């Protein structure tokens, strides 16, 4: 591991130097495997946070009852090594040639692979019209907050803060529902491509909501992190 970036009190990004890394696509993940001294192994999947062409980075949220994430968020230091397998996945991936308009919907740490797509879009000079709908508990829980505040041509970012809002907050303040999707999502007639990632309940709500709006189910790609909000 070559460097660490704190994103929120519970989340950090780890930049990894993997020998012979074959490169990755935007939206893929890696499996991280930890082996205890007694041989016990635990393995979890973490989305790649960096764009293709950038050094491999993963963003990890600490789950208090987790087996792997507390080590990755609280313990591991620059220079430490652990086992990774990947890159993994060929379904939940985006390339500029896939077109758009692009709707990215993330719940909590589900924003991580979407961030890789946004960086890929920017670095490749793509002008695909893109909206990010990002549901977070509070402003302090927003991952990549400064990066997402930077404006980029053709990119809209809509934050919804579900538990706590700062004074003067004028954005949405509830979980993503059909009304919010209707406000934010591209019209189905425009042939949008959607990527939805987050806790399983978030993904089910958003994906079925988009299909109800007329989205082609084959162009609504999903990735579920489970009930806990991370994998």
């Amino acid at each position, binding site marked *: 591991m070559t460097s660490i970036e704190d994103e929120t009190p519970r989340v950090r990004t780890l930049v990894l130097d993997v020998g012979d890394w074959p490169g990755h696509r935007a939206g893929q*993940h890696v499996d991280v495997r930890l082996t205890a001294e007694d041989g016990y192994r635990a393995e979890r999947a973490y989305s790649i946070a960096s764009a293709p062409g950038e050094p491999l980075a993963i963003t990890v949220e600490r789950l208090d009852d987790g087996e792997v994430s507390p080590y990755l968020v609280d313990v591991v230091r620059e220079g430490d090594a652990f086992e990774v397998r990947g890159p993994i996945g060929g*379904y939940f991936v985006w390339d500029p040639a896939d077109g758009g308009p692009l709707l990215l919907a993330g719940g909590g740490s589900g924003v991580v692979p979407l961030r890789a797509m946004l960086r890929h879009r920017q670095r490749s000079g793509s002008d695909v019209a893109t909206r990010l709908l990002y549901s977070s508990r509070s402003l302090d829980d927003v991952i990549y907050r400064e990066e997402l505040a930077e404006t980029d041509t053709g990119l809209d970012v809509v934050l919804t803060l579900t538990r706590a809002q700062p004074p003067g907050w004028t954005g949405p303040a509830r979980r993503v529902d059909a009304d919010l999707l209707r406000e934010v999502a591209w019209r189905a007639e425009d042939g949008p491509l959607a990527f939805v990632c987050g806790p*399983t309940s978030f993904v089910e709500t958003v994906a079925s909501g988009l299909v109800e709006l007329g989205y082609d189910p084959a162009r609504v790609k999903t990735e579920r992190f489970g009930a806990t909000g991370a994998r």
Partner: protein
Amino acid sequence: MEALDGNAMGGLLHDVFGTELTAASAVCGHCGARAAVAETVVYLGGPGAVARCRTCLGLLLVVVDVRGVRCVDLGGLASLDVPGADAG
């Protein structure tokens, strides 16, 4: 046990089949529904990994390691089509 999806099985399936399979198209042997492997309902918390059909919840595939031997049961799959299989 929490339900994930086939994306979470990508690494395991790559180990078993030697190729990326989440974008492969699986046809359920129970109800005939066709969906990407990534869209299946996956449980990883048990003694093995289980993928079920999102349409009928029928069992599609099971991967279990028993005393160092990996057992793969694909009995619930009618077919599995790998896109660009020659590209690996």
